């Protein structure tokens, strides 16, 4: 027990627990759904996870600063539609240009959130609730309720979801999933090794201390929103590639899924705690649940959302209980003892 304690922090154990939970859920549905353990299931879920995971990483950055971005769903839909229409009109656009365009559009929308929250000092929940509606309305206006349809899109884009990076037997690691993993890894490194990332945690865990330490807190929060927007833009591109058909309601509900993923993944809504990797696991959990419930014949469609909500609540509640227990185990009395040798040998009493 002591060795475990020295090696791991409660947060790492949380991630382990999350992983076990995902495995458990998969095993459970394996017994319930015919042909569940198939390459098709894996590919479907992994592609759908990819979109949510990218948004959730952006959401993590914002939530770490003790804010929230509810406009991501609208940003996903907005960029998917705008980029989609551009592509239908200019089939010749280079793939990289298209991706950059999506990221750029998202970043601009995120910057608007960031300006209002960081410099206007309007609470993030109000701001992004407002822009959630505004971005969606603008989308409805410019689209004139027309849809982007698959057969007007260039062939390369339609092929994107089917690009394989890797195959293990039947299981394919698709390009989109790989892209999400790259995003997770990059931002995991950003929060651990860039001063900007470190300061996200500092601002979230104690805004006043951050101010005293002399950070440009407003700029850092602003950038968190820009990043969240940019990642939602990237997710918009992935969304477009995945579905091809984009209507004005595209991406609706992603804001809630991303918040759920982030919270289930252990990011504290009070800021300062959590990681992109945790959010990624959270996204997997949420998405596995969602996709499996759709195919689970035992429950009706009407109950699906309720069950999903219930499971999320259960996950968070269990998590809170377990984390509190773990923290207590980890908060050793030996720390209070004023003798430094006690630290090394202590903890046996509390190990049980």
């Amino acid at each position, binding site marked *: 027990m002591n060795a475990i304690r*020295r090696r791991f*922090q409660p947060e790492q154990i949380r991630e382990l627990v999350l992983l076990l939970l995902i495995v458990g859920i998969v095993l459970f549905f394996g017994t319930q759904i015919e042909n569940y353990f198939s390459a098709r299931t894996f590919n479907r879920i992994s592609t759908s996870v990819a979109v949510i995971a990218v948004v959730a990483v952006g959401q993590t950055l914002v939530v770490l600063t003790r804010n929230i971005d509810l406009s991501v769903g609208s940003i996903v839909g907005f960029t998917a539609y705008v980029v989609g229409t551009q592509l239908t009109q200019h089939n010749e656009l280079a793939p990289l240009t298209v991706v950059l365009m999506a990221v750029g559009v998202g970043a601009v929308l995120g910057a608007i959130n960031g300006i209002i929250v960081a410099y206007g000092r309007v609470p993030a929940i109000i701001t992004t609730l407002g822009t959630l509606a505004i971005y969606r309305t603008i989308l409805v206006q410019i689209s004139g309720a027309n849809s982007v349809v698959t057969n007007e899109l260039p062939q390369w884009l339609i092929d994107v979801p089917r690009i394989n990076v890797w195959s293990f037997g039947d299981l394919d690691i698709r390009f989109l999933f790989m892209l999400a993993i790259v995003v997770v890894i990059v931002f995991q490194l950003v929060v*651990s*090794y*860039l*001063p900007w990332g*470190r*300061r996200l*945690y*500092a601002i979230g*865990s*104690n805004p*006043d*201390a*951050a*101010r*005293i*330490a*002399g950070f440009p807190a407003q700029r850092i929060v602003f950038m968190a929103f820009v990043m969240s927007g940019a990642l939602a833009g990237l997710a918009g591109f992935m969304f477009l590639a995945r579905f091809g058909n984009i209507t004005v309601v595209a991406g609706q509900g992603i804001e809630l899924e991303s918040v759920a993923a982030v919270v289930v993944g252990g990011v*504290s809504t009070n800021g*300062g*705690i959590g990681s992109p990797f945790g959010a990624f696991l959270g996204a997997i959990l949420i998405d596995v649940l969602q996709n499996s419930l759709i195919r689970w014949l035992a429950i009706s469609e009407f109950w699906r959302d309720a069950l999903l909500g219930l499971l999320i609540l259960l996950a968070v509640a269990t998590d809170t209980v377990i984390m509190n227990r773990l923290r207590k185990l*980890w*908060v*050793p009395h*030996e*720390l*209070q*003892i*004023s*003798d*430094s040798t006690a*630290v*090394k040998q202590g903890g046996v009493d509390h190990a049980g």
Partner: protein
Amino acid sequence: MAEPTTQAPVMEMQHVSMRFDATQALEDVSLTLYSGEVHALIGENGAGKSTLIKIMTGVHRPDTGTLQLDGQPVHIHNSQEAQSLGIAAIYQEPMVFPDLNVAENIFISHRNRGMVMNWGRLYKDAEAILAQLDVKLDVRMPARGLTLAAQQAVEIAKAISLKVRVLIMDEPTASLSAHEVDQLFRLVGALRSQGVAILFIGHRMEEVFRIADRITVLRDGKLISSRPRREVKRDQVIREMVGREVGDFFAKTQVERGALLMSVHGLSREGVFSDVIFDVHQGEVLGFAGLIGAGRTDVALALFGIAPADGGTIEFEGKAAKIHSSKQAMNLGIAYVTEDRRGLGLSLPMSVATNISLPTLRRYLNGAGLIRRSAEQRTAEEYRDMLMIRTPSVEVEVGKLSGGNQQKVMLSKWLNARPKLLILDEPTRGIDVRAKAEVHHIINDLAEQGLAIILISSDLPEVLAMSDRVLVMREGRQMGIYDRAEATQEAIMTAAMGQHDRAVEAHA
């Protein structure tokens, strides 16, 4: 003023003791409150006054000892119970609900006023209570925008509406103007003549002597004296308050005073403090003494640019300096270790190492702009050894460490900024004796290394033992600077409590 009646006591505390971990907050304290008597309770910061109040209002339960109301033993478990027994407290900052009107505020704690609000009756009752107190206030006016004195009147009216028998007033005059104090004292007089027993906690001697019928002195959790006002003299009371042993403290080693580092002239911040004048030299510890709320922390916040001064000049190393942000202060070489570890100081969920490197993160970047974690950890390990921070590893969350160790992490964080001037605000508050002694050693070592230190402390013996000179503040004003030789507990306390002003000495 009405004479205190000699009748059976309303409330009695007998042999009450209470301990928090290592601190004996109260030791065998007995106190008797009579109806129609204003009983003043005085003592230094940390003498046990707050604990006493909290016991009376049911926030704490004493370890030993009993509480009696009208001769009957009572056990008070929470402040609602205290209220229903007729014990209420009002504080320095009145707790009114700004969006509710005066009448609603007065009756906010009443639960049995029926299902439907009877506004007419509410207003009439409120007016009746205010009339009793001879207060003219529109009961339909929202509490927002009332002056502090008016808010206190509302609080007192609230207490009366609850048929209060014992009213505790915890430093109610601290933020009032002289005129408002007069108004408040009229209310106190009205309450007294209605037979309410009042426990009045105050810091200003002249007010205590003006209003009190009986004066009780607490020191280090012990009852020192309790006598009718006319039997006590002011200097006697002050002597009783400060009579603590200085001997337990580690005394600062005398070091040769170095070059002049900073001169502050006429530093002011409107409504907070004014005309602060002092010099501080390398290798010198300048103590800031005074009661809580005297403005010492505000001066520190101004010097560190968090709440910048709006008047006066600062000269740092011979050059005029403008300090409008903590960044500017840090660039000059000023570091501020806050008294508020949790609020302003540390990021509790973050590790020891990341907390220490936070203000100086730039130093830990490699060529690519990435944080070198190993270097960060090395620094943290160095400070862990140097300041004896007791933690299983520097990767542990700061929130899990004990108060004394958190304090050391905070100190490490700012020492690592390699300051020339270190401002320590209550560096030993709430930490155990041993950690305290260690912090004193550290201060001493740092001064020997030539650091200039401003030490703000409410622990009088500590300031006296650790400082080369002591600056005393009272209510935002500088009362004087005392050399080590002339800085006695009595002299400092007298200045801090405003017995007589002393000419400000800028260049002692």
